[in-house]
């Protein structure tokens, strides 16, 4: 069947099977940031936004996104790079395989929560698993990213420097 949807702000038409999963379709369409990590609907690696909400693309039928808007990390490149730099600076990642899904959910969190405390952050990101680390680097990166977002002065200095 033919479906039409918006992928990263562009209208897309695709031919899909009844049991084609969104994750596979997105990868076929070139969005290789979307990965499958667990096969049990648990790990958060396949996180994309559908109509602005974080979802597990491994469990969404491609047919069901007909008429909807899908965003992958490729669609929020600048923001992802900005936050990704904080992750890298904290040495938060080892293999990095889980990062795209993690970044998508972090960015979703900041769209939903104004100024989350550490418990709120942990709860929001509980569905993003990382099997290399203990999440401490990721939490440091989030805190520093939040500090930077809060202080425009520092931002200006950095740009000038």
């Amino acid at each position, binding site marked *: *069947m033919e479906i039409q949807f918006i992928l990263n702000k562009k209208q897309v038409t695709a031919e899909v*099977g*009844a*049991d084609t*999963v969104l994750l596979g379709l997105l990868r076929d369409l070139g969005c290789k940031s979307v990965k499958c990590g667990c096969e*049990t*609907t*648990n790990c*958060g690696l396949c*996180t994309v936004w559908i109509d602005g*909400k*974080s*979802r*597990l693309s*491994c*469990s*969404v*039928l491609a*047919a*069901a996104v*007909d008429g909807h808007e899908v965003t992958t990390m490729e669609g929020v490149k600048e923001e992802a790079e900005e936050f990704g730099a904080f992750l890298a600076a904290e040495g938060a990642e080892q293999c990095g395989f889980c990062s795209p899904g993690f970044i998508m*959910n972090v960015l*979703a*969190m900041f769209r939903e929560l104004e100024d989350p405390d550490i418990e709120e952050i942990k*709860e*929001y*990101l*509980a*569905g*993003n698993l990382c099997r290399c680390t203990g999440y401490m680097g990721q939490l440091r990166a989030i805190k520093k990213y939040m500090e930077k977002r809060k202080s425009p002065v520092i931002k200006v200095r950095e740009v000038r420097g």
Partner: protein
Amino acid sequence: MLTIGNYVKAKTLEEAYELNQARNSRVMGGMMWMRLGNAKVKTVIDLSGLGLDKIEESDNVIKIGAMCTLRQIEESEALRNLYGDGFAEAVRHIVGVQFRNQATVGGSIYGRFGFSDVLTAFLALDTFVELYDGGTIHLSEFVKRKPDKDILLSIIVRKSKRKFRYESIRQTKTDFPVIACAVVTGIVHGQETWFFSVGARPMKAELVDKAWEIPRDASEEMIAEYARKAASEFTYGTNMRGSAQYRRHLAEVLIRREISSILAEER
């Protein structure tokens, strides 16, 4: 693995019901559990275009469409105003935000899963299910029925001044619960009544009600005795997450805490 022959986004409830009468048809909720199974489904029926994704509050009931997500339950002002943080507590440990943005209330209730926090929570309240063909029946009756070819349209909670508490134990965050307990109390026909719903025993949630009048200043020992009595009304099983004996102990502890918490609020 799951294979699907046809995907149909139903345009009317009639169409969904008719399609679902075929032996190889399945209604999809959030596809969280269904996709993990082995099934050859001829037609999968998507109800997402039928407006079943709203939580509506009227004078007497809160009506939750079957396609509402667990995240909607978590964030519902209507449920929070009536029952405090109980519902948010019941669902917030379920996998992650992404999962709860997708898993549906209808899928959870229709599936009557042993591990279901959602079923455990709703069962403790005065809850009904609205079926396309089978009318509106009490959830406590629905849980005993075997899955059939009817379609679950909504979950209806009859509003009442009841106190609601929910607690679960997990071996690790985001895992299935080892035990899940909901305690509700209120006046029913002039009589103080306590409702206990215990799920993940690991069998699906069951409901026990007691016409107990527990003094608001009851000692911890007295409360522990009530909790012991309530927990002993259920059967428990053993699986990889815990033994029957362990589960029974946990149920006692959680029920005791929940009774204490309600009494403390009313003191």
